[in-house]
């Protein structure tokens, strides 16, 4: 065996992220599942570190492990999902279908990976790709070369990828508005609350029609 330290760490961290991912779907207890998901995310962050993409690694921990997963745990605890939920469910048509789709996805991923495992072509493609970022610049930013630094991430996001960034932001905004609309009660309920002051959960959802 001729493993360098980086190779060895790659296998360790890959095992952590894949194993963590498996444990997420296999564990009965939702809190355990959430903790394994954190482990898996941290494993992915470590892979980013091995690629020397430190910024991405830190963001992965900050956003996913630090904020999103806290929300997950929060919801799991509030809803009090016990370890038994989902146990003993039958092999319904829906389940078979979703299993089939999952298999299809894995197959597609495998085929694509094998097809494009000629690493060289992909690498040069992406290099050219980033070259564009530096070439399209105005005079002020002409000397910014693409690198791992935060600055070049910011430069890319605010020049070439401005539109995708805005679209992604708009999508998130739409999702947020959707959540508010779905969870908010009607106006007359608000007035009712102001008058009496009971919790909004006591209202009748049918009043939305009126």
């Amino acid at each position, binding site marked *: 065996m001729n493993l360098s330290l980086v190779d060895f760490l790659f296998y360790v961290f890959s095992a952590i992220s894949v194993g963590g991912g498996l444990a997420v779907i296999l564990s009965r207890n939702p809190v355990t599942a959430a903790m394994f998901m954190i482990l898996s995310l941290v494993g992915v962050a470590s892979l980013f570190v091995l690629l020397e993409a430190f910024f991405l690694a830190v963001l992965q921990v900050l956003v996913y492990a*630090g904020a999103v997963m806290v929300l997950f745990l*929060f919801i799991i605890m509030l809803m009090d999902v016990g370890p038994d939920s989902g146990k003993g469910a039958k092999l319904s048509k829906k389940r078979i279908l979703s299993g089939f789709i999952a298999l299809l996805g894995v197959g597609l991923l495998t085929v694509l990976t094998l097809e494009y495992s000629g690493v060289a072509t992909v690498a040069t493609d992406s290099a050219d790709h980033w070259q564009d970022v530096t070439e399209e610049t105005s005079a002020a930013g002409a000397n910014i070369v693409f690198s791992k630094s935060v600055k070049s991430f910011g430069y890319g996001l605010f020049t070439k990828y401005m539109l995708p960034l805005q679209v992604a932001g708009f999508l998130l905004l739409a999702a947020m508005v959707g959540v508010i609309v779905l969870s908010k009660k009607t106006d007359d309920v608000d007035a009712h609350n102001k008058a009496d002051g009971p919790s909004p959960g006591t209202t009748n959802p049918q009043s939305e029609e009126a």
Partner: protein
Amino acid sequence: MDIELIQMLALKVTYAVVMVSVVMSIAGYTVLAERKVCAWMQGRVGPNRTVLPFVSAIPIIGPFLRNLGIFQPLADGLKFLFKEEIVPGHVNKFYYYLSPIVALVPALTTMTVLPFGEFTNAEGHTTPLVLANVDLGILFVFAISSLGVYGIVLAGWSSNSKYPFLGGIRSSAQMISYELAMGLSVLPVFLWVNAPGMTESGLSLVSIVNSQENAPWLVLIQPFSAFLFLIALFAETNRLPFDMPESETDLVGGFHTEYGSFKFGIFFVAEYAHVVIGSAIFTTLFLGGWHFLPWVADPWAPGLIGSLLGVGWFLAKTFCLIFFFIWVRWTLPRFRYDQVMKLGWAKLLPLALVNLIFYVILVTYLDQAAAS
């Protein structure tokens, strides 16, 4: 493995152990400071009984140290160690044992990127004194400290009883709310330091400190950012007036109600380690780090003595902030939970956004003015 690598590893491990022991002893003595300061504020004397046998024999110094309570943290630590460990029958054992560790580890990890001084050798080459001089300093601190909430949440959940659970829920809601405001409040600082015409420094904490040498401290340039950051810091360290997860009066002991002996001790020390690290981060960002005074060059010559004085000066600033933390705790009453949420989302976050936009416009304006 060759001998140089082993030497380097041994040196790094020694540095890390020294750093951890210094921060932990500061945290331990912060507990004492808290008890003493609160006693003085309430017209009491505070801990003044504990003393080591042979020290009490020294004529004047012995009683003085005893009255100061210098040996109290030692006695408290021993007490935590030797108390009977009670594990309630209704807890989820694995997470019950895990959560104190999860609470302490982030507090100790953030200190790796914390610069506390610099050393200039005979050739005039300056090295910052920091365990790991990471480019992404502040992001690293935020990322790691955001993991600290798991300790509290898991403790609340695994205790499997009402009050700790409520403490855990409150804590996670509070952490999520104030993390945003905290991140947004330091953005203008980095915007300012990286503005066109300034030396480009990225997100490194060392360069933030160096930008404040012979220049006004950032707290003078951006008082509002500093204020917002300080409020968010209080919330993130769970200190009064934001100690929602604990709130003894309505939740018994909050998330650590079911914990005893050394596991409680770890939670306790983790909270104070957070306070110490938080104060040090604030000093680095806004109070000029190890540099002397705003606009004034360091009066000490570079070299060993100078760098020691610099570290001492940094520690002095940090201690002042720790005192401020204690002072606020024994002055202000606790917020209600809904007030905390309202303050976080409806006041602090919009203010941080306004602050950010203001400095974006200001930096752009200054850049344009300089260009024309």
